[in-house]
């Protein structure tokens, strides 16, 4: 049951990214190009995506997930250095190529060698983070 729900969710996510144009790096970079020929599509995607989720979060109150377990804890509120620095680094990569993790996966079957090279580099970066964190914690405690 959990597997079926996850498969359905993934398929909807992939279809949504595909038809919204978010696997098209030109549209994503066009949204980020506020000083140029600005493309507002991404704002509609983000706004549209938040609508069902506002209701979903309300439905979680006082309940448990359909297949058991528990809902995520309330969001943390501390603004940490890794949150800021990580998001800025992500934004730089996002601006350079125009792909973020969801679309990079969704477009992997038709993105050519370019998509594969980006995804491999992205996964390598993710794989390197736990050891990088350990090293940084030693250099700069209390991050």
């Amino acid at each position, binding site marked *: 049951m*959990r597997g079926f729900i*996850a498969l*359905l969710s*993934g398929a*909807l*996510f*992939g279809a*949504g*990214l*595909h*038809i*919204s*144009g*978010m696997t*098209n790096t030109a549209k994503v970079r066009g949204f980020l*190009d506020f000083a140029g020929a600005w*493309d507002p*599509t991404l*704002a509609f*995607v*983000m706004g*549209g*995506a*938040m609508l069902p*989720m506002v209701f*979903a*979060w309300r439905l*979680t109150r006082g309940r448990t*997930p*359909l*297949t058991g377990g528990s*809902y995520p804890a309330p*969001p943390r509120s501390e*603004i940490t250095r890794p*949150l*800021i620095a990580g*998001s800025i*680094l*992500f*934004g730089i*990569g*996002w*601006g*350079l190529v*125009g*792909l*973020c*993790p*969801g679309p990079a*996966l969704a477009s992997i079957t038709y*993105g050519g060698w*370019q998509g594969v*090279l*980006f995804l491999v*580099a992205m*996964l*390598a*970066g*993710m794989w390197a*983070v736990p050891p990088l964190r350990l090293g940084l914690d030693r250099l700069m405690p209390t991050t």
Partner: protein
Amino acid sequence: MSIDWIWGLVGGVMIGTAAAVLLLGTGRIMGASGIVGGLIDGTGQDRSTTFAFLIGLIGMPALMTLGGWAADTHATSLPWLLIIGGLCVGIGTRFANGCTSGHGVCGMSRLSVRGFVATLAYIGAGAATVTLARVGLGL
């Protein structure tokens, strides 16, 4: 103005519905970097659910393309740019604990302060990067 924003809105509602299905069905947050990152660095649990999600995420656009609904990524063909971009996205999203789907869609919709701060930071950095790359390097 083109009708692209309508496709954006429709696709966006589908993305939000996907996140709602995963949350209400399994209790998991639909953050792409968290889901795939947990698989890569071994910290993720519930691996069979993760695999099923990834099969849907990759399989559905593939099926749509086969069915005639083609899309193009129009990505750069400069290998160094793809490698640097991929590394920045991979390292950055894992340090920040989320990306456009986790901090953006799932975080901001529950009024998470961290979600708003992260989204402001990556859109700001992305906008600065695109502008500098276009003006300075012609990329």
